């Protein structure tokens, strides 16, 4: 936690200038909703966002403890503006209003940066365009990263199975503080707990043991309505099904676990599980694990099955 800088709080509310920070790229996080902290000014912002992008809420500041200053504003495509009102005369403030205009940063969508201005008029910057600021930096404007509570899946139909890739599962993240809370975020898969098991494999099989996620660190972007931006292919493909049937290895089953991780920027209020990861492109990022999935893939003489957390897709068309 950063020590409050009471001098800077005074400057902000009482109309003196703070250096302006430059903007960078336009970002596309869906919502500004959450409980934001601005340690440099010892202030916090409780923001709600409606479906149309309308922002409401209030500001709290240590210079005027216990008073909620109302906030209204808008957010669209990761670019927001909101205004704090009701300041004048409260706790000796000379400022009528205070407006924040800025951007939500990726990865994580839990940090923001931009400019403020007030009615004096004075202006300055808030936050910084850096998801992983140096330890101890007080120039942050952050909220605890939003983490899904779970995922739901659409079970693929037999017709959707790919002969090369197997069964395509599309997931939707559940939880969060607002509609489309996770839009603009990234989720990643990693091997879960312990080794998987493959009862189809036998000594000398031309198919190697298949009991783990194939590309640790693979990323899916979260699109609108919290849905993954693409499928996760789970299960045996046609060549493997035909091979194990030919070799009289069926019925058989492969199982493994898949740890899902969602991206996050630094916030002192992040969950303790916040930590560093490497994605499949070799890049580093920080994230929070949010769900451990059990995956399965079965073959019988007439069926191929793909299972994700107890839901099963059955394909009877592959001969």
């Amino acid at each position, binding site marked *: 936690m950063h020590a409050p800088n009471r001098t800077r709080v005074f400057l902000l509310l009482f109309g003196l200038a703070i250096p302006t920070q430059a903007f960078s790229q336009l970002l596309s996080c869906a919502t500004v909703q959450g409980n934001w902290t601005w340690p440099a000014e010892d202030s916090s912002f409780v923001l709600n966002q409606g479906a149309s992008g309308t922002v409401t809420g209030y500001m709290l500041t240590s210079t005027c403890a216990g008073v909620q200053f109302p906030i209204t504003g808008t957010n669209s495509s990761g670019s927001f503006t909101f205004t704090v009102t009701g300041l004048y005369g409260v706790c000796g403030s000379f400022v009528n209003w205070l407006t924040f205009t800025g951007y939500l940063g990726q990865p994580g969508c839990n940090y923001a940066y931009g400019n403020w201005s007030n009615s004096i008029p004075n202006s300055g910057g808030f936050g910084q365009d850096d998801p992983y600021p140096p330890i101890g930096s007080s120039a942050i404007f952050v909220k605890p990263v939003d983490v899904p509570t779970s995922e739901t899946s659409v079970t693929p139909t037999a017709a959707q199975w*790919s002969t*090369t*890739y*197997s069964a*395509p599962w599309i997931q939707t993240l559940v939880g969060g503080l607002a509609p489309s809370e996770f839009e603009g975020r990234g989720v990643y898969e990693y091997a879960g707990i312990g080794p998987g098991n493959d009862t189809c494999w*036998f*000594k*000398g*099989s*031309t*198919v*190697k043991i*298949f009991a783990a996620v*194939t*590309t*640790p*660190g*693979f990323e*899916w972007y979260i699109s609108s309505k919290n849905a993954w931006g*693409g*499928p*996760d*292919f789970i*299960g*045996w*493909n046609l*060549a*493997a099904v*035909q*091979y194990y049937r*030919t*070799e*009289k*290895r*069926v*019925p*058989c089953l492969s199982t493994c676990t898949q740890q899902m991780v969602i991206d996050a920027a630094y916030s002192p209020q992040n969950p303790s599980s916040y930590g560093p990861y*490497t994605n*499949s*492109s*070799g890049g580093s990022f920080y994230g929070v694990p949010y769900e451990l999935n059990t995956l399965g*893939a079965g073959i019988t003489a007439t069926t191929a099955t793909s299972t994700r957390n107890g839901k099963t897709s059955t394909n009877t068309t592959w001969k």
Partner: protein
Amino acid sequence: MCRALLVVLFFGGVSIVAAAQHSTTIASDPRDLSRPISTLVDQMRQRENISITYEDPRYGNAADIEDVTAEASKGSDLEKAYGPHILVPKGRAITFVYASPDVGSTAAAKATIERMLREYASLGGPAFTVEREGMRLHVFPNEVLNATGDLVRQGSILDTVISIPPARRDGGELLQAICDQIRKNTGYEIGVGPSVPGNSLARYGTNAGIESQSGLAALERLLDAATLPGSVVWDLYYGPDVKTYMLNFSYVGSVGPVAK
């Protein structure tokens, strides 16, 4: 002469030499001796973060083949006795030792793998060779016993030169087209194994075709376009009973200083 300096010089020097020559021992899996070289290659990938591919020979001699029907088949006793038998490669147990500097550069790693392959061939196993192409080292067959016991030359099936007309395809469709074209040119089917990096290939799209390229170069180019270059390697396994290949994939992550 400063005695302390001598001590530091002598013992410090010994320590440095010892650290530099720290050796690593890798060995075949006694529970599965079907493809010992593939097993060793896999261990080198994991330990040294090297991008190495492996390809089976087409085993054709009884000395190189084992019948595992009794233990592997889930068919009835009748099927086991009178049905098609499950035949797999029969390899030789091998233990191989190398030192850290032996894999410190691409040339050193290649020389180390060559030494490993020579040691394996001296045990009576098939002869393999290793070449560098693109970002990977490739281990593939060189000589193998034919049905009559003669040692005959056999190269990589992925050396087959292929052409594929341009069309809109995703990565998996292009991969399948590469395998289909090799089958058309050689008669040998290559199945795409379930470990294919499907999520990456499904996301990748191209209009490009392939014009007079080796299957190996086409495969490398596709994988390196769809995934982090050098991060995905393959094990091309041949089934002596089904007389087809299976293309297995492994993710080795961001490759280290060798074959980078």
